[in-house]
């Protein structure tokens, strides 16, 4: 019998080696899954089961919005809607350096109200904003980074399917949890903005100011009416539909896609050719993302079956340190798991073990739940294996390397760690809004 850490390092190690040797990510997962299924799941039966598990992982309605947000992103980019919005913003914030990077964070916050799925956010913002920003001379740290950072806010600002699932699995009141995540989510957005401000000041090259003259007020208002307000229609087709109870969060991705297409048609920017191109590209990028997601799910199941993930949990729980330090160790283990596992399996594996202990220690489980969500969000954009990074690689313009993405992600990860530290030290960030709303 292998020890859990031997199994874990063997499976993860072979995965990493294959990836570094240049095997495409999805196929590196597939290779490890194949051998792992053969070894751990009973030979040929295991391989047959791998086929069944992989196809099963993809027949999931929860993944559908990723593809639909891709349609939104592609149509916005190709029809010039994204370009128009940035032009209009230039008219308002002519001399503000890094304004588009701020907009990426703002967009992240905005779209995080649209979705509960950070993959969808990265797909949407990465495909619509990144090409435009690079065209305007922004360097990769200021195009890829802010989106990677802020897309994760999708799970920190309601509606958040992940927070709801966490509430169900950890047996926490969902209404309170949805309130509890808001302030930490905004805190993260502020940290990202502060970083952008600092970086642009220290290193002006990353965000050229290409002094656009501040346009006269009348021109600004016209540009806003023509280019920014219509975006409101798309936002309404998503958020409004959810809020009014017309669509569920998953379905709302479809109404958003349709609204984007209609808007592009209305602006006379969408020929049949352009539409087919957008559709083709969005389905192809979805294919890349979904293939990785499906293979990663099967990999995660394999890890759980071998007991490797449970072994790691056990170790964390039995560390000979103070309760606060154990909670911190839990948070770090979630970040580590988040690098190569999807959020749902992490929750199923860790929450039932962690939450009772947190309660036993006398901590507020809502506080822990918020730390948990930030940690999952952090892990999903952590090098080398964070799935969000691969999604970004899939949607980013040609010539973007993984190294570009890794280095762009790091500063925003530091912001995430800072957010974790702040919430950890000041639980009031979580408990105060909740007590305000419910007590």
């Amino acid at each position, binding site marked *: 019998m292998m020890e859990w850490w031997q199994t874990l390092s063997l499976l993860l190690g072979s995965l990493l080696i294959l990836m570094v040797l240049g095997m495409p990510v999805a196929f590196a997962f597939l290779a490890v899954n194949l051998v792992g299924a053969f070894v751990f799941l009973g030979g040929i039966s*295991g391989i047959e089961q791998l086929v069944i598990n992989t196809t099963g992982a993809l027949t999931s309605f929860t993944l559908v919005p990723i593809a639909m947000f891709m349609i939104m992103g592609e149509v916005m980019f190709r029809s010039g809607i994204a370009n128009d919005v940035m032009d209009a913003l230039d008219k308002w914030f002519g001399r503000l350096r890094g304004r588009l990077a701020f907009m990426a964070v703002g967009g992240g916050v905005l779209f995080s109200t649209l979705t509960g799925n950070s993959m969808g956010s990265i797909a949407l913002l990465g495909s619509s904003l990144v090409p435009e920003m690079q065209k305007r001379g922004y360097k990769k740290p200021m195009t890829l980074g802010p989106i990677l950072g802020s897309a994760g806010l999708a799970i920190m600002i309601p509606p958040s399917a992940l927070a709801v699932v966490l509430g*169900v699995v950890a*047996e926490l009141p969902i*209404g309170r949890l949805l309130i509890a995540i808001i302030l930490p989510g905004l805190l993260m957005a502020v940290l990202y903005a502060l970083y952008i401000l600092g970086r642009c000041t220290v290193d002006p090259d990353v965000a050229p100011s290409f002094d656009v003259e501040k346009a006269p007020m009348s021109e600004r208002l016209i540009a806003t009416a023509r280019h920014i307000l219509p975006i409101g229609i798309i936002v309404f087709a998503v958020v409004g539909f959810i809020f009014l*109870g017309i669509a569920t969060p998953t379905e709302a991705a479809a109404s958003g896609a349709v609204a984007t297409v209609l808007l592009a048609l209305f602006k006379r920017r969408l020929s049949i050719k352009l539409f087919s191109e957008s559709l083709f590209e969005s389905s192809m990028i979805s294919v890349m993302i979904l293939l990785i997601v499906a293979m990663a799910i099967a990999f995660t199941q394999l890890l759980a079956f071998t007991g490797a993930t449970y072994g790691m949990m056990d170790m964390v729980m039995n560390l000979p340190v103070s309760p606060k330090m154990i909670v911190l160790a839990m948070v770090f283990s979630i970040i580590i798991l988040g690098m190569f596992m999807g959020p749902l399996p992490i929750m*199923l594996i860790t929450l*039932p073990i962690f939450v009772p202990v947190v309660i036993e220690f006398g901590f507020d489980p809502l506080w822990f739940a918020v730390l948990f969500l930030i940690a999952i969000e952090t892990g999903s954009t952590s090098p080398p294996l964070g799935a969000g990074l691969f999604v970004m690689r899939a949607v980013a313009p040609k010539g973007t390397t993984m190294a570009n993405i890794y280095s762009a992600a790091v500063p925003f990860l530091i912001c995430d760690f800072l957010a974790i530290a702040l919430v950890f030290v000041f639980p009031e960030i979580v408990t105060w809004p909740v007590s305000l709303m419910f007590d």
Partner: protein
Amino acid sequence: DEIRMNVVSFTPKTAAVSDGFHRFIEAMNKEFEGELELNWRGGPEVMDPFRMADAVRNGAMDMALMSPSYYSGLVPSSPSSNISLKSYEEIYATGYYDRMTEIHDERGLVYLGEIPASDVNFFIFLKEPVDNYTDLEGKRIRVWPAVLPFVKGLGAQPLVLPIGEIYTAMERGVIDGFVQGNLGWAEQFEDVVNYYITPPIYRAGFNVIVNPRKWSRLPDDLQQRVQAYLREELAPELDKGWDPVIEAGNQEVANAGFQEIRLSDADAEAYLDIAIEQAWADLETKIDPALAAELKAMLVD
């Protein structure tokens, strides 16, 4: 030599309904110590619950603890055990479990027996009150395939949504209600659920299915003792052992402030009749009608 089996369950180990699985695994390992060891590897985090029966059939997994409706694609008549209001012992007396053994055998599975939960039932949960079940007509109710015929039979609009979306859909009014057991979740939903209808419908019971090749490695004598122990001794015990779990569930429902909408005796009878008859009518379209009639005679008076 001790034979070890890898086991998966369709629910996470910590779910309220997994209580019966804990008791099952513990009792089995104690009773057959040194002969048979069940190693419960986990739940949905290990494998998609809808693929577990396939894994048992092809041998990737040795045993699975399943909701019968989760593998109706492999054994179409398996969901029948839910469409009943009887207790385990009443059903046992009819020979139903022997019949299910034959049916599973034809479909490449060993049916070891049931982890019964006859007192674990299902309710309709609602945000807005109704006076009678007839008021449910036109309401949008979230279902899963097994309870769809019932909801249709009430004249309501059945909707299929992922579990993770129920909360938001209730909160925003996309759905008016949903069908669910009452174990282990009420307090999380206190903001969006206000009412539930009684009497509850159907019965729960979870099937223990085993891979035939693995099963054949057990000596004949052990096979017989294991099956007899589960069906004759353990299952009746398990069936009666749910009280603390159900009590906890009821307590949660009370704490969450859900109000009971109790149907009058006559209405309750009609309501249960719709539940049972619609589900059977649906099953009759999916399996051999003669088999359906045979099973129905065992499960419904």
